[in-house]
């Protein structure tokens, strides 16, 4: 069994080197595909992290009417907390708001003088952290309810509205666009790879049809004939995975510092540095799967045994 496996691998490797041009073309396309998959994986992880960092900072605030009673306050608090889209809720009293404001404008004595503890124009508020910043509309609906809106400060609108809302929505739609396009490009290139390898194996089957006939004639089993084609295609995947992992490492470590201020590459860097075998192994696994799948497809169609 081991001996037969060795012979199949040996024959597959020989096929790989015998048709060097075809093998190189198939491997090159597979390399591009795997690099795109890896880069899209890196950017996805970086974007997820960046977006998480941004969205973690997104809180929406509901500003309260100064005349709200403690009972109304508790009722409103319970109502907001009960909303399934709310992940966290913090009450900021008028005094807290003033303290925050003073801290922010510590270098501007004129502004500091304009406010006193007795004449505090800042409203109390609830700082709300959304579970998913994409679903803030239910909060908008909440503040418009007839029993809620009289409790709110009429002068200061719900902070997830107007310009803020547009910015938040834009960040979110950009991230989903990037993720979707990464996925689409990956799928397109995986399909191209499958087609190219399918064609390479098909040509290999045609050029070796005499050999295949002789193998059948002398009593080779189905897998002894098919094995080399399968291994040859797997080899495209293995070689391409190693090259594309190298390219991705180069891209990440050389290009990473240049985009450091804009996107958060820490998670990707950590994965690539701490678990290189998982990264390379993953790429090899995907490459081998694509190669073998295409080869099986070509054999199913053109290698009748």
């Amino acid at each position, binding site marked *: 069994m081991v001996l037969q496996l060795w012979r199949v691998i040996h024959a597959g490797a020989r096929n790989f080197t015998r048709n060097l041009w075809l093998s190189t073309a198939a491997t090159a396309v597979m390399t591009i595909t795997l690099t795109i998959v890896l880069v899209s994986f890196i950017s996805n992880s970086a974007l997820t992290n960046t977006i998480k960092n941004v969205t973690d900072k997104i809180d929406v605030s509901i500003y309260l009417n100064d005349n709200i009673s403690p009972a109304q306050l508790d009722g409103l608090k319970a109502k907001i907390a009960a909303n399934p889209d709310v992940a966290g809720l913090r009450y900021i009293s008028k005094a807290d708001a003033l303290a925050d404001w003073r801290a922010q404008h510590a270098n501007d004595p004129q502004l500091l003088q304009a406010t006193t503890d007795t004449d505090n124009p800042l409203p109390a508020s609830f700082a709300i952290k959304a579970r998913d910043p994409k679903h803030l509309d239910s909060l908008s609906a909440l503040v418009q309810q007839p029993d809620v809106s009289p409790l709110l400060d009429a002068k200061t609108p719900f902070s997830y509205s107007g310009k803020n809302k547009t910015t938040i929505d834009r960040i979110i739609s950009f991230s989903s666009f990037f993720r979707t396009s990464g996925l689409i490009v990956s799928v397109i290139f995986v399909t191209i790879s499958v087609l190219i390898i399918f064609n390479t194996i098909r040509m290999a089957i045609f050029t070796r049809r005499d050999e295949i006939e002789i193998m059948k004639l002398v*009593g080779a089993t189905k897998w002894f004939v098919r094995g080399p084609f399968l291994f040859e295609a797997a080899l495209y995947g293995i070689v391409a995975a190693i090259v594309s992992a190298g390219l991705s490492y180069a891209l990440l470590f050389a290009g990473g510092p240049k985009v450091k201020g804009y996107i958060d590459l820490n998670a990707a860097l950590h994965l690539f540095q701490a678990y290189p075998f998982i990264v390379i192994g993953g790429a090899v696994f995907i490459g081998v799967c694509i190669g073998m799948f295409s080869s099986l497809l070509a054999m199913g169609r053109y290698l009748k045994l």
Partner: protein
Amino acid sequence: MILFDRVTKVYPNQSIALSGLNVHIQPKEFVTIVGSSGAGKSTLIKLLTREETHTSGKIIVGGLDYDTIRPKDVPLVRRRIGVVFQDFKLLPNRRVGENVAFALEVSGARPGEIKRAVPKMLTLVGLGQKEQMFPHELSGGERQRVAIARALIRQPKILIADEPTGNLDPKNAWEIIELLLKINRFGTTVLLTTHNKEIVNALKRRVITINRGRIVKDEEQGRYTLEGGK
């Protein structure tokens, strides 16, 4: 050794290749099958090597009933039968020794076993000195000897030679026939198909004549009676 009992083969296009064929070949026999093109000789060989399956009747080879063969057992059936063709069917980019070894590799033989068996077989067919040569460096007769060595390396009980002399000059053709007779003397059943009238008549062995999928003549010391033999 080989039993065809009322074997019929109808191809998907409805052409009848064999029609109720009855053949019984004893172990160690040397049988020549003659017939014009399209008579059914090739179909008979394809049924033996299981490249085709029969439509009805019974085929038993070496005690194995072909009706009971599962698809995955077909390679094992082929390993029990050696086949030689008119066009040799050698791997052009492998040396003589590698071509012969190939039949053993396929069946999972160990390298040591291959190393011992191949030179012995090549010596038997008269190519002891040519193990390292490539097929294109050999004459037609020598190439056919390589094919015979490959067919015999697994010591099959049956050797099928399908027009083995078709591409050879008379001298080389006779050498191949003599080699087949020698193999037969060692105990292998030989089934030869040929159009060579001279060879058939000189052999003085059993001759089965097929026409339109039926046996028209089966003689112990037969002669070539078809029109147009070489």
